[in-house]
């Protein structure tokens, strides 16, 4: 058997040019497919990442019941948070986590009193708006979302101005530790526009607290954020988590914890894993107080969009395979057909048609394997390169900036991508060899030699 293989190998190289050409196409096909799969996964991951990184996060840990009633009665206490910390420690695949306290609030700009305090109109013009205040820990937040980077340079929302004060994100630490009624804040650009607030101004916020109390505090605005969500820009106000929690009489308590992970596709598994760890912390409790949710559960709309995208990728993959298949089969068939004369000669000197047939198939397989190997190396190399540099596409009519796609290097993906690519090429190569092989086995040596 082995001897046969060696012979076939030798036969393969008898016509170097032909084999090289065929092999080249095969190599190319393998490399392209590997690149395709890598890119596909990369684009896919990137889409999820950018959608979840802006605010949502890939996983959230909440108190059970928070998802249905996101209010102050479903907060994670500082004790809960400690448990979450413990569960996340050393968990593979987890990049970072950060707490957030979120609640509705009434916000207004702090202006000097109108001269006539009975001038109701002046007071009416001091708009109070409904807003959503989110207490974050800037250091931790940096690791889990792109909120920090969403801060715009200009500290005012009036686009026509050239003298806007500069804006920045919250300081790492609360700059007013001794004043419970003064804090720092970053506003969404839309909200700042409505309130006519710019960096340097002070705003007043009224939020609910526990026990039906209200908590009011002033904040100095240090920056404005602009995200891709007009809703966020129009309602969000960010401040320091610890201060907000203390002011609302829930020191150290959070609405939920955002968790950032490395591999976006495994969000659901990681969430389940995390849930198990959290449940394990209170084995005697009948029901675990925690709920670890992946972005799929947090945003079913995003989930649907992603699935849509996955589906279309599958379809295009199938089409790619068809093209590869057609080309490969054609190339192999043609190159095999060309050798008919050669087979005729060989049959004339006594080689059995069967042996020739098998020889043909074996040669094809060998060539495919060799090409597969070379193609894999090339494909992986391309993947690795693009993982770091990305592929830049300038967009058409609407956008000025380019969209950058980068591939993601992930062992699992690579394995399946590789296997799939090589497998496909192998399959179609063999298919392409079958017709000639069959034809040849039917020919008489004379006809074969005369074959044109």
């Amino acid at each position: 058997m082995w001897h046969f293989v060696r012979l076939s190998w030798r036969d393969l190289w008898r016509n170097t040019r032909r084999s090289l050409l065929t092999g080249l196409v095969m190599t190319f096909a393998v490399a392209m497919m590997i690149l395709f799969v890598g890119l596909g996964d990369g684009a896919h991951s990137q889409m999820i990442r950018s959608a979840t990184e802006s605010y949502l996060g890939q996983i959230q840990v909440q108190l059970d019941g928070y998802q249905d009633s996101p209010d102050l009665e479903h907060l994670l206490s500082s004790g809960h948070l400690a448990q979450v910390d413990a569960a996340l420690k050393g968990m593979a695949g987890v990049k970072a986590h950060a707490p957030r306290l979120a609640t509705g609030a009434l916000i207004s700009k702090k202006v000097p009193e109108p001269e006539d305090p009975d001038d109701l109109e002046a007071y009416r013009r001091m708009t109070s708006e409904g807003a959503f205040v989110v207490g974050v820990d800037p250091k931790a937040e940096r690791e889990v979302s792109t909120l920090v980077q969403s801060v715009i340079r200009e500290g005012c929302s009036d686009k026509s101005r050239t003298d806007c004060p500069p804006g920045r994100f919250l300081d790492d630490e609360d700059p007013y530790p001794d004043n419970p009624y003064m804090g720092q804040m970053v506003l969404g650009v839309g909200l700042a526009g409505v309130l006519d607030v710019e960096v340097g101004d002070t705003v007043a916020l009224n939020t609910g607290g526990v026990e039906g109390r209200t908590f009011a505090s002033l904040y100095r605005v240090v920056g404005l954020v602009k995200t891709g969500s007009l809703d966020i820009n129009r309602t969000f106000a960010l401040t320091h988590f610890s201060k907000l929690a203390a002011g609302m009489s829930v020191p150290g308590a959070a609405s939920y914890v955002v968790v950032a992970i490395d591999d976006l596709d495994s969000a659901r598994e990681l969430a389940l894993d995390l849930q198990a760890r959290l449940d394990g912390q209170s084995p005697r409790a009948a029901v675990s107080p925690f709920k670890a949710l992946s972005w799929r559960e947090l945003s079913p709309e995003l989930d649907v969009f992603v699935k849509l995208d996955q589906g279309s990728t599958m379809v295009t993959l199938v089409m790619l395979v068809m093209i590869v298949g057609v080309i490969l089969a054609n190339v192999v068939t043609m190159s095999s057909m060309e050798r008919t004369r050669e087979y005729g000669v060989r049959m004339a000197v006594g080689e059995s048609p069967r042996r020739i047939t098998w020889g043909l198939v074996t040669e094809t397989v060998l060539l495919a394997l060799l090409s597969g190997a070379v193609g894999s190396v090339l494909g992986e190399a391309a993947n690795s390169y693009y993982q770091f540099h990305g592929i830049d596409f300038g967009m058409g009519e609407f956008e000025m900036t380019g969209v950058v796609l980068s591939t993601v290097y992930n062992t699992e993906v690579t394995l399946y991508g590789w296997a799939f690519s090589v497998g496909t090429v192998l399959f179609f190569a063999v298919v392409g060899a079958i017709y000639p092989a069959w034809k040849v086995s039917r020919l008489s040596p004379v006809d074969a030699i005369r074959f044109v």
Partner: protein
Amino acid sequence: MRTLIAGSLALMVGLVLSLGAGAADGDKPSKELAEKIVDEWENLMRGKASEGVLEMYIQRWDRSMEMQFFELYPDKSLARIKSPAEDAGKASLKLGEDLWAYTPQIDQVQKIPPSLMLDSWMGSEFTNDDISRSSSVKLDYVVGTPEADTEDGVKTWRIPLEPKPDSPVVWDKLVVEATQEDHRPLRQEYYDENGQLARVMTFSDFRKLSDGRLYPYKWRMTNLQEKGRYTEIRVKQMEFKESLPESMFGLRNLKRSR
């Protein structure tokens, strides 16, 4: 501010005053009687003002607050919190349809937007809307025929009130129960659209005021939809006046911590 209080107060005052006018008013359960009661109350409230101190106990959070209040019919009121210390100085002002709130810790006046009108006032079982809405029940409801009943041995009239077609009140029906003898209001019942009792306001601890009126010093609003949690207002001081200065009901006054 406490126009609900004021409104019910007016109702009661009217009833009390009508004691002399026609206590033994035939005791016929007629719509005219009911209308008369309500009318008398409304007539009485015209051009009146009041001020006082009250304590509000919120059973849900086991929390008490002491407040000073001023009221000028028909639609101006001011309430200022005196205790506990962390809430002292907070004040609310109702001017017409608008509700304003002042927070001394940050020295800021904020207008409460209409979308928060249905929110609970200070965490109690009263809503912002209860507190700020116009005093007249007749504005939103049609008075029906009273029904005779007994409560703790006392003969009472139960007067049904049905919402007018256009009125945006959420209740399907109100029932006011007053004594037959002196038309003292005992309770105000709020019914949901399935006919279930959703909230009930009970009045008790009636005392004579300096001008002879019989006034309830205890009001309790019970929320039956939420396991009967309640808020109780206990009046500590109460005085009716001919009028109060308009300037008192301004934003400037809102901020003073007098």
